[in-house]
């Protein structure tokens, strides 16, 4: 039994991890899944409608689904369908998160009511929100109070919501397919009348009026519609540009006919609104069939991203790391063999899912693994877990596993919170658009961060085990210190090379190897700290405990370099200070200082205090 238990546990969770790859089933008769897979363009990149729905919802309420009460949740794509086609129903869904007390007061929301409210609850106050937001927008970002920030965010959320309502059809039409059909009918006669008028010949005023009236409605649609739904008309001129519904309808004047995609979307809108699931699914299937030939590439890419969205590999790996962490910690107190092996296997499965997620992202973006702060958090965790697995392989004492699982867990939590800001696959600005330098510089520097955190967390394992458990022996202490030293060496190499290569990139792009820019300085601090640790140990100025403490302080240095410098512009200066991330960074820093303090207390094992 003891032999098989780790395998059984791992097998069960492995299957669970893979089950996320199964395509989900639509929640209603309407094929929302097929709808979510449709390709569209937003923020300069091709993506499925599912991503539009999820990222919009993230901006509104920081979640990827809408709560329906009593634990039930509605997937983002079903919510988007409602917003687009049945806004009067969607207005009741609790899609807005309003948690700032003063803002809640302004909107007459009960102080102890739910943080999530529907548009209905704030509809009467929209004008007030606009007024307050206009005033707050005039204040420079770094000087805004938390209320001003909240009201600006809410106002942009309201405008996003309004745009989504007007992305698939004008909000106030009942049967959009009929409107489009009428427009199509008026197009020929209207254009003919216009041409006659240009030539100063008799024309039908009625035909012309009908056309211009239709066009007026589309003008609003063109300025509001959010995602670019309609693919290019002529593939000869390239795969760009996509256009939104309103623009495409207006452009029909030049083409003389309506884009087929518009007709499909209009049919879907009418069918959904009138509750005809079969018709909706048929129009959807027809559109997918129409896309399949010329836009097979786009359909495939959007489908892949849809699967990635549904799987959420980093959330899966987060859960696995948590289990591995618990199993690893428990192994120090008993059943070492079983629990240690279970922990290693769970960590390995988590690592595989983590790796698969990174590879998936790379394939979707066509980029190296690290392109922004979010992906750097994912990658720092990945590097740390890999190092932890290697350390565990060398020592087999659960230390590597616990450290790796803790870091994997923490970095995934950080990444998850960073992802709440919206699209994590945004396009790169021109300067950064260089896969070669992204690969060499960003990956080395990020692995340097990983190693710094690994060393620091090994230090924490040392301190905590020594202070709180009876499981600490001098041999374990020596081994941990040796590991910490080895990992610091690794960190030095990667941080130094990464920093210098970053300088070389800067030299290549604007001729300045070093500009004392905050991000560069952050990287330099890590390198300097590594140098201090190595010289202090090499010169015999610190011994085991000192080395451990220096390594733990390395966590502080690294987290400042990684995140602190990004907050410089925001915080520190005036009030800004209280930005959530900044609070968490400070919590982390204080916790590290406490660990260092703990190292100076003598543990239950009565280990002699050494310098």
């Amino acid at each position, binding site marked *: 039994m003891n032999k098989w238990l780790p395998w059984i546990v791992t097998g069960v969770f492995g299957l669970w991890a893979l089950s996320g790859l199964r395509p989900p089933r639509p929640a209603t008769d309407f094929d929302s899944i097929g709808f979510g897979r449709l390709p569209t363009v937003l*923020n300069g990149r091709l993506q499925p409608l599912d991503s539009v729905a999820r990222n919009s919802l993230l901006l509104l309420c920081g979640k990827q689904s809408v709560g329906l009460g009593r634990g039930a949740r509605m997937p983002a794509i079903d919510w988007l369908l409602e917003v687009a086609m049945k806004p009067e129903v969607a207005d009741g869904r609790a899609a807005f998160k309003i948690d700032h007390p003063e803002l809640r007061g302004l909107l007459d929301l009960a102080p102890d009511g739910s943080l999530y409210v529907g548009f209905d609850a704030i509809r009467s106050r929209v004008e007030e929100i606009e007024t307050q937001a206009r005033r707050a927008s005039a204040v420079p970002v770094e000087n805004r109070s938390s209320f001003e920030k909240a009201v600006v965010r809410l106002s942009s959320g309201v405008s996003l919501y309004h745009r989504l309502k007007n992305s698939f059809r004008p909000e106030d039409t009942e049967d959009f397919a009929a409107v489009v059909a009428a427009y199509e009918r008026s197009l020929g006669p209207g254009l003919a009348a216009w041409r006659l008028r240009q030539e100063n010949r008799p024309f039908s005023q009625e035909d012309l009026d009908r056309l211009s009236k239709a066009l007026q409605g589309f003008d609003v649609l063109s300025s509001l519609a959010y995602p670019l739904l309609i693919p290019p008309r002529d593939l000869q001129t390239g795969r760009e540009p996509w256009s939104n519904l309103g623009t495409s309808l207006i452009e029909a004047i030049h083409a003389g006919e309506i884009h087929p995609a518009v007709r499909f979307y209009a049919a879907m809108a009418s069918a959904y609104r009138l509750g005809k699931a079969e018709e909706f699914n048929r129009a959807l299937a027809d559109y997918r069939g129409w896309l399949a030939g010329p836009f097979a590439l786009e359909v495939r890419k959007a489908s892949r991203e849809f699967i990635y969205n549904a799987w959420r590999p980093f959330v899966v790996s987060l859960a696995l790391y948590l289990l591995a962490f618990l199993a690893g910690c428990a192994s120090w107190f008993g059943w070492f063999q079983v629990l240690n092996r279970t922990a290693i296997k769970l960590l390995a499965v988590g690592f595989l899912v983590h790796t698969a997620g990174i590879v998936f992202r790379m394939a979707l973006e066509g980029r190296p693994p690290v392109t922004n702060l979010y992906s750097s958090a994912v990658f720092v965790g990945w590097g740390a877990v890999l190092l932890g697995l290697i350390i565990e392989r060398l020592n087999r004492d659960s230390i590597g596993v616990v450290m790796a699982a803790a870091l994997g867990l923490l970095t995934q939590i950080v990444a998850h919170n960073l992802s709440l800001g919206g699209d994590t696959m945004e396009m790169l600005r*021109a300067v950064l658009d260089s896969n070669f*330098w992204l690969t060499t510089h960003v990956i080395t520097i990020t692995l340097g961060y990983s190693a710094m955190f690994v060393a620091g967390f090994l230090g924490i394992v040392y301190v905590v085990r020594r202070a709180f458990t009876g499981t600490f022996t001098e041999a374990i202490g020596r081994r941990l210190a040796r590991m910490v030293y080895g990992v610091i060496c690794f960190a030095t190499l990667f941080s130094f090379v990464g920093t210098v290569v970053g300088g*070389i990139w800067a030299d290549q*792009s604007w*001729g300045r190897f070093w500009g004392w820019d905050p991000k560069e*300085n952050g990287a330099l601090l890590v390198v*300097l700290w590594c140098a201090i640790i190595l010289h202090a140990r090499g010169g015999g100025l610190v011994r085991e405990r000192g080395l451990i403490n220096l390594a733990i302080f390395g966590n502080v240095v690294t987290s400042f370099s990684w995140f602190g410098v990004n907050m410089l512009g925001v915080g520190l200066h005036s009030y800004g200070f209280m930005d959530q991330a900044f609070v968490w960074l400070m919590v982390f820093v204080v916790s590290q200082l406490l660990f260092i303090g703990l190292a100076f207390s003598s543990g239950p094992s009565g280990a002699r205090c050494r310098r």
Partner: protein
Amino acid sequence: MMRFFSSIRLTLVCLACAMVLVFAGTLAQVELGLYAAQAKYFRSVLVFWTIPGTSVGVPVLPGGYLVGGVLLINLICAHVQRFGLSRDKLGLLMIHAGLILLLLGQLATDLLSTESTMRLSEGESMSYSEDARHCELAILDTSASDHDLVVAIPETRLARHKQIRHPGLPFEVRVIEYWPNSTHRPIEPGQGTARATQGAGQRVQFVSATPETRMDRRNIPAAYVELVASGGSLGVWAVSLWIGAGQEFQHEGKNYEIALRPARHYRPFALKLLRFSHDKYMGTDIPSNFSSDVHLSNARTGESRDVRIYMNNPLRYGGETFYQSGYDQQDPRVTILQVVRNPGWLTPYFSCVLVGAGLVVQFLSHLVSFVKRRNA
């Protein structure tokens, strides 16, 4: 003495100072801006703190030059005194040699490199670049039809000297007033008289302004100068970057122009902008790519060829490097190139390889001995 300079404690003190310095210098950027913080913390021997309410400066930290210099001496002394040349110290030697190279290279960059910009419109040809920080007072003799004679007086001289003579000029330049940064206001009729008696300055009054410290803003200097010939004063001119064009005047039958303009760096070749493209991602304002197609012609060497300069792909020519740096928000046909002359630009490359290899050698030797001990 040697023991002090070669001690590892000194190394640690220097590294610790460097950390504090970098940290403080980074935070200070919020308040001072990048350029001023750099000058105060990194390009200095000592960092001074001004006691609030007074103008008394107290040195609180060693500056970048001091820390870097002591570290350099420390490194060299340590190698001479303690390490010598032995095989097991090879890694250390490589690392430290690489660091010395990096430090010296950066010092050279700091002292010798120059940066300027070239602003080219499509179809325009240019053989000079303009300094982004410094200006010059240019006096042009435009009498000849095929060339101009230019006398350019650097801004630093305007700041230091009251009277400037030059063999190319038949008059003396007297600097009445010079401000590194300035603002201006129009003179309403009947409200005071202009300090300038000639040229465009008769309608505006320039006044001193506090110098800018932020990286993205530049100082706009202004000066009042009087030109005095042997026969007496020709008048007082206001010159400033605020005044775009040169101001014309005549003297002894010759035509002159006077202007305060960004200092120009001339070179023996010309760049002509053929085409500038500026792409954005679909449906957004995020730039995805810039590129400038330029034609390079050098009369001296007979070179004449087309070059494409784009992000991360500069043109290296004649000891200088031309980077795609920006674009004009108003005019889509204008490219902005950054021109850098930096004789030390290669040092980081060598240093990176040297230190990286040194670290690998050093840690591998640790690892080998560790594994040997483990297996023993």
